[in-house]
């Protein structure tokens, strides 16, 4: 959830004057309520990002038409693209709103910035969505190293720098959900009972690969692969490969999907012959 911090300090003698930018925001008062569009005009200083504009709207919620309304609700956290909270659909494309500069998404005079909540998750209110299913996916593939406990048992396994580099990239996944929002195979599923068999999405497949590659993590590789062989697992991927295009962290998600594809087939063959 976002505690909106106070709007920016006005700068004395700024070199470039603020310019008015219209924000077209798809709003919704709560689950089951209809969506509606509202427009706000925001005085945008140079280097403003979408978050700072939303903060201005929160402080003074008046539409472009001059009507008083409620502050727009959105999710935010670190504001430096490392927590994943402020993900939304900006001008039709999913991304983090903190790293979305206005000069970049509305460079010309008269450009409109369109903000929508992610469509693949149930809306809580306005731009705030409930991404619980994303974390459910992590539990589904047992995305953890099954250590014996948190007491001192000596050092972990040794690891070469090349493996570390490979695991590090996979481990930077911040569970923002961009890969799911852009995926044509991952669709809105408000019914929690069906999450277990609905498509799990690239992020969790990639996390399964991350932990399968860890010496201790690989102890439960079979359980992860069993989960990914079932309905909604890796074979539900349609190879549209949007995930890797929209991933803000540049995680090689399509490589993970292929790697897990190889693992599951080997796992299935081994299981067929070994029982």
């Amino acid at each position, binding site marked *: 959830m976002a505690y909106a911090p106070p709007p920016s300090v006005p700068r004395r003698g700024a070199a470039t004057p603020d310019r008015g930018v219209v924000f077209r925001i798809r709003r919704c008062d709560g689950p089951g309520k209809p969506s509606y569009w509202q427009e706000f005009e925001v005085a945008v200083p140079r280097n403003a990002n979408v978050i700072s504009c939303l903060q201005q709207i929160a402080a003074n919620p008046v539409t472009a038409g001059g009507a008083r309304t409620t502050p727009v609700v959105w999710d935010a956290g670190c504001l430096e693209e490392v927590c994943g909270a402020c993900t939304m659909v900006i001008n*039709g494309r999913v991304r983090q709103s903190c790293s979305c500069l206005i000069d970049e998404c509305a460079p010309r005079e008269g450009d409109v910035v369109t903000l929508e909540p992610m469509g693949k998750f149930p809306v809580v209110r306005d731009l705030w969505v409930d991404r619980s299913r994303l974390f459910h996916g992590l539990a589904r593939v047992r995305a953890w190293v099954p250590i014996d406990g948190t007491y001192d048992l000596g050092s972990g396994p040794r690891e070469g720098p090349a493996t570390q580099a490979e695991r590090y990239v996979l481990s930077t996944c911040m569970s923002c959900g961009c890969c799911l929002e*852009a995926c044509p195979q991952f669709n809105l599923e408000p019914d929690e009972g069906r999450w277990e068999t609905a498509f799990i999405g690239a992020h969790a497949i990639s996390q399964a690969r991350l932990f399968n590659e860890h010496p201790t993590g690989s102890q439960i590789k079979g359980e992860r692969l069993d989960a990914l062989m079932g309905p909604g*697992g890796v074979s539900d991927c349609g190879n549209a490969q*949007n995930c890797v295009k929209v991933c803000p962290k540049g995680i090689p998600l399509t490589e993970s999907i292929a790697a897990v594809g*190889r693992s599951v087939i080997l796992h299935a063959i081994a299981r067929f012959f070994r029982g």
Partner: protein
Amino acid sequence: MSAASPPPAPPRGALERHHFLLRRLHSLTGIVPIGVFLVAHLVTNSSLIWGKAGLRGAHPELGWLDGGIAYFAEEVRWINTQVPHLLLVEIVLWVSIAFHAGLGVLYARSGRNNVARYAYGGNRRYAAQRLTGYVAIAFIFYHVATLRWGWTFLVPGGTHWSAEFAGSTLAAAIKGGQAGWTLMGVGVALLYFVGVSATVFHFANGLWTAAITWGLTISTGAQRRWGYACLAMGAALMLAGWSSLAGALMMDPASAARVEAMVGAPAGPGARQADAPTHVAP
């Protein structure tokens, strides 16, 4: 420990119980037997264009196109003499296609195309793969029903395809009649063009994604390189498909039938094609 994790909900139907097997069979049937047959089929058919070379000097009196007709006729005739094998192959093919198509439709319906928002190349191919799948189902059904099962009521001109007169009856079935082009024939020819193109795309792109699905191409570089290979393969097949079609369309059914008779057809196709309308295409 993980043993204490809640067990996954019991799968419901057979589709879910055998999810993985079905998915992999779906992918596999696309390549073997369907893809392999497609390659053989298009290579054979394209001999309408290159068959003169295949005659290796036999029938020197025939021109380039007539040579193709002759070669094609001999090939098809040979294939249709392999009766028990052919039947087996056909049954396997029909079952495979039905399986691949049925599951394919089911799988395609699980996705929501979003090319309008995310117009990346991969996403366009994803959408095209599903669209061409639907087109291919319709086309292959029409193609097999009219030319193999003899549903001549679907053929403008009512031509019944004959293995003995493979080229000429094919040309007549596509062009709309024994005498040449009809308006309906133009439609059928267009259907063939679209259908063959869609099928070839579906196969070539399917080969590319299958390599990911089966974990053969993992790195982005490998996927790109295999992509080029599939592109080349697809282009070659597309050429074969289009040349087969061109060969049929350039053919005059009547004179082609004479060539076919000359290289060994027991009798003219006349009996079956006597009813065919004889007007000449513009």
